[in-house]
C-alpha cells in the first residue's frame, strides 16, 4: 500500500499484503457461499436480512457516531460525566447501541494522560460508535507492539508524546470495549457541536492520534 493513499499513516504492516491469489479467493468465496446457501435453505437467515446487515455495517455504523458523542461531551459537562460514568448508556442517549456496543467504556485524555485502545486477543471494538475496525487494528504488529512499546508505536502513527505524558493502554474484550475521549483542540472555542464532531477521527477515538484543527 502506498503512503500517499494511506491517509491514516499506520505503521508499515506486512499483514496488509496478506491478500489471496485469485484461485484461493475463489475457494474462499465458494466456502462462504456454501454456508450462506445452507443457512438460507434451513430458513435460519434470509438474503434480505444479510443484505440489510451489510448495508448497516458498511454505511450507518462508523466513527461519525462516536464523534458526535465526543463533541457533545466537549460542550456539555453533564453529558461528559455521564459518558465517563457509563458510556453504553450515554451512547444510547444519542441512539447508538446494538451488537458490540454492550459494555462500552470511555477513557479521557488529559494533558498528562494519553489513552490508547487495543484488543490483544482478537478484534473487540465498539462497532456502534466506531464501525468495524481498520485492518491494522486486527493484525499482530499493532496488537502486540502497542502493549510492549506504546510510545514508539504512537510515534509511528505520527503522535510524538512528551516524556511526562503517561500512556495507558486499554485491552478491549467482550466485557469491556474502550473508546477514547480525546482532548478538545485549542482554537475551537467558537466551534459549534457539529463543527467539533467533524474534527474527531476514528484514530483519535482509538487513541493513536490527537484531534487537531
Amino acid at each position, binding site marked *: *500500500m502506498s503512503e500517499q*493513499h*494511506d491517509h*491514516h499513516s499506520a505503521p508499515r504492516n*506486512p*499483514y496488509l*499484503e*496478506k*491478500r*489471496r491469489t485469485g484461485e484461493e*479467493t475463489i475457494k*474462499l*468465496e465458494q*466456502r*462462504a*457461499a456454501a*454456508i*450462506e446457501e*445452507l*443457512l438460507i435453505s*434451513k430458513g*435460519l*437467515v434470509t438474503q434480505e*436480512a*444479510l443484505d440489510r*446487515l*451489510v448495508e448497516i*455495517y*458498511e*454505511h*450507518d*455504523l*462508523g*466513527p*461519525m457516531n462516536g464523534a458526535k458523542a465526543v463533541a457533545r461531551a466537549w460542550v456539555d459537562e453533564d453529558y461528559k460525566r455521564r459518558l465517563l460514568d457509563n458510556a453504553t448508556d450515554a451512547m444510547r442517549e444519542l441512539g447508538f447501541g446494538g*451488537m*458490540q456496543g454492550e459494555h462500552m467504556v470511555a477513557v479521557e485524555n488529559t494533558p498528562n494522560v494519553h489513552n490508547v485502545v487495543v484488543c490483544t*486477543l*482478537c*478484534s*473487540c471494538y465498539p462497532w456502534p460508535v466506531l*464501525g*468495524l*475496525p*481498520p*485492518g491494522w487494528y*486486527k*493484525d*499482530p*504488529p499493532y496488537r*502486540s*507492539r502497542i502493549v510492549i512499546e506504546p510510545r514508539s508505536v504512537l510515534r509511528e502513527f505520527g503522535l510524538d508524546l512528551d516524556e511526562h505524558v503517561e500512556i495507558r493502554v486499554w485491552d478491549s474484550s*467482550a466485557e469491556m470495549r474502550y473508546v477514547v475521549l480525546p482532548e478538545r483542540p485549542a482554537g475551537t472555542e467558537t466551534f459549534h457541536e457539529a463543527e467539533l464532531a467533524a474534527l474527531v477521527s*476514528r484514530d483519535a477515538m482509538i487513541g493513536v492520534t490527537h484531534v487537531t484543527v
Partner: protein
Amino acid sequence: MESTAALPRRSGELVFHDAWERRAFALAVALCENGHFSWDMFRNHLIHEIDAIGETAAHPRPDAPGYYEHWLRSLEKVLVEQGVCPAETFER
C-alpha cells in the same frame, strides 16, 4: 491484488476487501443476532484460530490464514458446535 482501500465510504475506509469477507461477516452477525450462538462462543473460536497460527509482530507469516479466514473457520466451527450444521458439512 486490487487496491480497493481508497474507495470512499460514508463511515470511513473500506472494511472488506473481497465479497466473501463481507458474506462471512454478515452470516456470523446474523446468526448470533438470531440466537443460534452467543458472541462469546464465536469469539472464543476466533481467538483460538488467531492464536493457533502463532504470528507475532516480529514473525509475520503472509502465507498463513488472514483475519477473515479465521473468521470463516470460526463460523463453521461454532455452527457445528451448536448443532446448527452437522460436522461433515465442512469437512474438506
